[in-house]
């Protein structure tokens, strides 16, 4: 039976050494990038898939396609690293049937209205709202960039957005 070993939010999706570390850490043998927009763009899909470590299969699919496949055969025997690009997309996945239990916020860059809350992870107020929604639904949320870092809890960092 396949299993989802890690669900990670990273605006860079698959990028080199960080993803390679997580793959080793969780012993993943498959990456799924869950992104409705990207799944519609065959060229961009190739650009992002190129970043995966050689030998690790990558699927870039919409949330609906993931949920359907998951319910059908759990991706066979694969141990999956699932990546989505934003807090909003993680919430959207959760609301559309994705079996989200643990969520790692791993990389979110700057921009207007965004505040650095932990290492170089930023959040804005909408992100906090969405994460609170997920947390109320029972999702466990941590902030962590690489395996060597101490994870921070959502509760411990969210206040910084409102300072």
């Amino acid at each position: 039976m396949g299993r989802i070993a890690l669900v990670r939010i990273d605006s860079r999706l698959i990028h080199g050494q960080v993803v390679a570390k997580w793959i080793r850490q969780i012993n993943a043998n498959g990456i799924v990038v869950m992104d409705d927009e990207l799944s519609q763009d065959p060229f961009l899909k190739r650009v992002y898939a190129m970043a995966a470590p050689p030998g690790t299969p990558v699927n870039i699919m919409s949330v609906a396609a993931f949920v359907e496949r998951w319910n059908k055969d759990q991706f066979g025997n694969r141990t999956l690293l699932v990546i989505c690009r934003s807090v909003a997309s993680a919430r959207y996945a959760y609301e559309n049937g994705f079996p989200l239990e643990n969520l790692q916020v791993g990389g979110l860059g700057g921009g207007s209205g965004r505040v650095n809350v932990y290492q170089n992870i930023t959040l804005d107020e909408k992100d906090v709202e969405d994460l609170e929604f997920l947390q109320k639904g029972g999702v466990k949320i941590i902030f962590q960039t690489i395996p060597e870092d101490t994870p921070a809890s959502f509760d411990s960092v969210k206040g910084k957005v409102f300072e």
Partner: protein
Amino acid sequence: MISVEKLEFTEGVPVVILVTHGKAGEGLIESAEMIMGPMENVVAISLMPGQDPADYRGEIEKVLDSTSNPALILADLFCGTPSNSAAILSSARNIVAVSGLSLPMLIEAVNMRGNLSIDELAKVVIEAAQDGVKDIVEALNAID
């Protein structure tokens, strides 16, 4: 951020474009000039913290559009934003781009660009960059 004020390139000399996170490219140009003296037709486009990737791609296009000379893009990190910018632009225009930018790669690009087509230049700079990676003491010990 583009390292030169005016995009004016000498005719007939391929343009070498360094695309990097932050100003690594600008620094590398300074380093190369310590060895090569002043270099023409080399420009660094630095991805600044928080810069929108589409904006960054626009800067690369601006440099490419400013000249009819062939151009070789050298990117710091494979699949980083600068490298992906070149990849994305390749769907709409002819792009020759190599990742793994290093000082030997830059020097080779400048040394060999007068003699080779841009595609051949890409191949030789890859080789030069790879050849530049050695265990120094081991190499020394291998000499009688």
